């Protein structure tokens, strides 16, 4: 296909180009964790607790061990004796977590024993024969009940079910509430859902007693993963080698199977054979510890009659389940965009992280921002409705203006750039808003339930880790770097080395495009490889919409060093100053004298073989590394909790039209436009793809997906028959409208986009559904807005009017 020239004057960046990764996927040559087959490899099946809370009285492994082909049965007793507890993000040292429970189980599905056998089938047979005697204990499933003073304690030693609580006050909140013309209050609830990748988590490990090295292959997306695995296994960091060249079958923040990995690593070392664990679907949904935010917001808004929002009070309670991990920090990241894209000058934010006897949470796309955006956008619509003001006008009035950037919000974060009004206008034009309103009104006249929803939301990007130090001053992490190594070999071919795994973000395309751009060489010929953790430079993995910014910045930095070296070699050989030279397509010539040139091949040859032609002080060979810190860096918070969270802020506006079948409560999304500004796009197809996917995921979170629990603490949606992921029939045609406000902080003006779509879709869909319900005089602020929930609202309205 013909390549188009980038509108922004770049050679490769921003052009429509094929990705590096796709060919291996369409030919069935991806290399996923479940494809790893090591010679002599054994397989694990897990024994899980059927109780939400119980004491383990005894475990009898003998019947399982008697099954032919069974090698070993590991229990929590031995495992916890041989490993250290997993890392916890907040300051809660007594909330210890291991892959296998010992003594007490704290949720239904928690792993109690692991059976190792020749095949997975034998391991599963034997797992059923492990006899565990339990004594039930009290449990708590509801987060509000868990906050009560007499609640059952999930971790007795911790002394409370509260993992984290703080009230932040930024700006004159009480004064604003006292002076405002109006106030309103409501509760918005985000249901327990997650990213639920189609690939479950998988990990294989092999211990080499000769070298004392543990090799790990995993479908992982996790910062500090090798380090945390080594620590928990009580091994030095250089005794664990994580292979990052494993394709990860979807993650969206979630695939952090650290507990799985420590279990498998322990068994591989203990038994001296390679061991693999691939979760089945139920294990993934129930015991994989990969649920997402489960949160309600008590929102209070102070506003004037002209629509100016003066202040917000936000109380957020998040049910993280039975153990901590990093999940409480998902209440911390939204601090960096706590007022959304609006000029709101005073904010009170009171996050509470509470434990219950449910499956633990893991990081989910947006790290807590999507629920926050949903609550903010419901507040905007409720204010508009209260004032009988147009929702778009209300937003226009409160949106930060283009000329106000960089814009400092009350919680201490500076937004880099944006033109929110322009993006909103573009999206309205793209959907032909007046026509859409007519369509809705006609549908209503014809007796149908029809509504339009709008959201205007931020996507913080460039992920640093400021929420860690904000929520846990003992954790002084103030760097969150990423790196790249660029190498030009003797044949003149270029290789870029990245230092983490990928789960569909197209990092190989990103790195090759950026290196190609800087060195003016064809990206298609640039190879990008994933290092293993022992040959890698520092990386913090693709979290927080950071790779275009961080890996892109690092690749550009390394490529520039190569370019500088090539120019220095030419300057030395032409006996002139580098300023007298120009670099073109990899060749270097004297300015104005195209014939006085050293070609790419000649320069490479000098660097690799002709030391006598090298300038003094320059290393032979041709490679350069670059370690990049997050622009603006993570900073230390002020005593009142103001901090620079992520550096870059992408913006998205969603406009969606929904009709709801009044007889069944079934919603259908009829039209969908998303206006999106993530600065300069490195590869538009990749950005658009992630945005479409994020919207589909947001459709799921708002209408279908829920890890529902029964009152007696059992997960009621552990399969794809009851945890409903939207198919192509539920996801409508989506039209994306691009806008580009470059970031002043990044190499090419790029911002992040990995969480795009998901951060604004649930908010817009909730607003659309409420617009549709509005004529009936009912509303809904609880996600997911299932058919049943909508049908109940509709029939309650019918009853009222009858």
């Amino acid at each position, binding site marked *: 296909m013909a390549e188009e020239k980038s509108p922004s004057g770049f050679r490769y960046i921003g052009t429509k180009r094929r990705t590096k990764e*796709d060919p291996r996927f369409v*030919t069935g040559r991806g290399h996923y964790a479940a494809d790893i087959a090591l010679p002599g490899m054994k397989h694990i099946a897990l024994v899980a607790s059927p109780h939400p809370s119980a004491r383990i009285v005894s475990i009898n492994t003998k019947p399982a061990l008697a099954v032919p082909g069974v090698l070993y049965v590991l229990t929590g007793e031995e495992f916890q004796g041989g490993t250290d507890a997993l890392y916890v993000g907040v300051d809660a040292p007594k909330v210890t977590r291991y892959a296998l429970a010992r003594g007490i189980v704290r949720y239904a599905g928690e792993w109690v024993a692991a059976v190792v056998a020749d095949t997975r089938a034998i391991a599963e047979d034997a797992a059923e024969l492990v006899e565990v005697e339990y004594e039930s204990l009290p449990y708590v499933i509801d987060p509000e009940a868990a906050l009560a003073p007499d609640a059952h304690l999930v971790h007795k030693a911790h002394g409370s079910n509260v993992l984290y609580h703080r009230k932040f006050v930024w700006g004159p909140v009480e004064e604003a509430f006292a002076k405002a013309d109006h106030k309103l209050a409501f509760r918005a609830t985000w249901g327990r859902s997650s990213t639920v990748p189609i690939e479950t988590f998988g990990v294989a490990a092999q211990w080499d007693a000769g070298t004392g090295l543990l090799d790990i292959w995993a479908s992982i997306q996790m910062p500090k993963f090798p380090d945390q695995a080594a620590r928990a296994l009580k091994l030095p960091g250089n005794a664990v080698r994580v292979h990052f060249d494993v394709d990860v079958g979807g993650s969206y923040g979630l695939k952090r199977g650290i507990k799985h990995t420590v279990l498998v690593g322990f068994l591989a070392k203990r038994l001296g054979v390679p061991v693999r664990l691939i979760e089945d679907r139920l294990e993934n949904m129930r015991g994989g510890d990969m649920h997402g935010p489960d949160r309600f917001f008590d929102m209070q808004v102070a506003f004037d009659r002209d629509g100016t929002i003066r202040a917000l009070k936000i109380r957020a309670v998040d049910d993280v389940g039975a153990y901590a991990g990093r999940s409480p920090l998902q209440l911390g990241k939204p601090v960096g965009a706590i007022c959304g894209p609006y000029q709101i000058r005073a904010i009170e934010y009171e996050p509470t992280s509470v434990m219950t006897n449910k499956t633990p949470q893991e990081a989910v796309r947006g790290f807590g921002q999507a629920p926050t955006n949903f609550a903010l956008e419901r507040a905007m619509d409720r204010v508009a409705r209260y004032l009988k003001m147009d929702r778009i006008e209300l937003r226009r009035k409160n949106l930060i203006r283009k000329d106000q950037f960089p814009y400092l919000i009350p919680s201490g974060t500076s937004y880099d750039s944006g033109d929110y009004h322009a993006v909103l206008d573009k999206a309205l034009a793209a959907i032909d808003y007046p026509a859409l309103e007519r369509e809705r009104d006609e549908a209503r006249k014809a007796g149908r339930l029809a509504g339009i929803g709008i959201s205007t939301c931020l996507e913080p990007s460039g992920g640093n880790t400021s929420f860690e130090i904000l929520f846990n001053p003992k954790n002084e992490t103030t760097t969150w770097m990423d790196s790249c190594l660029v190498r030009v070999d003797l044949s003149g071919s270029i290789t870029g080395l990245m230092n983490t795994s990928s789960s569909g973000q197209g990092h190989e395309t990103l790195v090759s495009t950026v290196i190609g751009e800087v060195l003016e060489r064809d990206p298609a010929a640039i190879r990008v490889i994933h290092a293993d953790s022992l040959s890698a430079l520092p990386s913090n993995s693709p979290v927080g919409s950071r790779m275009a910014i961080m890996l892109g910045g690092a690749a550009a930095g390394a490529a520039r060093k190569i370019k500088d070296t090539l120019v220095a070699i030419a300057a030395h050989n032409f006996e002139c100053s580098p300023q007298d030279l120009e670099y073109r397509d990899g060749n270097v010539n004297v300015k104005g004298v195209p014939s006085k040139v050293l070609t790419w091949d000649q320069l490479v040859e000098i660097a690799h073989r002709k030391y006598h032609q090298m300038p003094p002080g320059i290393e032979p060979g041709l490679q350069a590394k670059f370690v990049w810190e997050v622009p603006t860096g993570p900073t230390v918070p002020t005593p009142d909790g103001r901090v620079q969270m992520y550096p870059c802020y992408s913006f998205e506006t969603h406009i969606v039209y929904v009709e709801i079948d009044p007889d069944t409560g079934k919603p259908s999304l009829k039209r969908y436009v998303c206006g999106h500004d993530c600065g300069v796009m490195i590869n538009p197809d990749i950005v658009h793809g992630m945005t479409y996917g994020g919207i*589909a995921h947001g459709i799921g979170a708002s209408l279908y997906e829920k890890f529902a629990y029964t009152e007696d603490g059992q997960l009621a949606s552990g399969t794809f028959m009851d945890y409903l992921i939207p198919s192509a029939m539920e996801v409508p045609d989506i039209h994306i409208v691009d806008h580009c406000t470059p970031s002043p902080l990044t190499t090419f003006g790029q911002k992040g986009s990995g969480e795009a779509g998901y951060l604004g879709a649930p908010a817009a869909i909730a607003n659309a559904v409420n617009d549709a319900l509005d004529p009936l005089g009912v509303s809904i602020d609880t996600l997911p807005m299932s058919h049943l929930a909508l049908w109940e609202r509709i029939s309650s309205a019918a009853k009222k009017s009858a």
Partner: protein
Amino acid sequence: MSEKLYSISVEVNGVARSAHVPARLSLVDWLRDDLRLTGTHVGCEHGICGACSIMLDGEPVRSCLMYAVQADGHRVTTVEGLANPDGSMSVLQDSFCKCHAMQCGYCTPGMLIAAKGLLEANRHPSDTEIRAAIGGNLCRCTGYQQIVDAIHDAARRMASGAK
């Protein structure tokens, strides 16, 4: 192991394969673990996600819901068998790359099988027909848009004779 084994003969991607398999071995496990055709993926093992889709005698089916013994005497095509005879990518595979109809690639083999099944039965599918045809295949990455675009693209190219 004392499990009883059954002998099967299956044509897989044009090659005759025979094996002795236990009755409970699923077709997908046989393809992936025994034949090492790891292009076919497993997402749910209960027939919902479609990641394990293969062609059985030219029709898309879920290989997690079939036993290997049930494939005896049949013809199986997996993603590894979708390329042209000379090893180059088929139009459908190429359109998927052209339109970037994937991200992580995990659902992709199943999507290609569903799309192939559609295009063999319907050379000019509408948007709705495409969505219905891939409606039983879950993708968590793409939101389906670029997959729909790719299938349209392939249909157009195949209609004008491309292979």
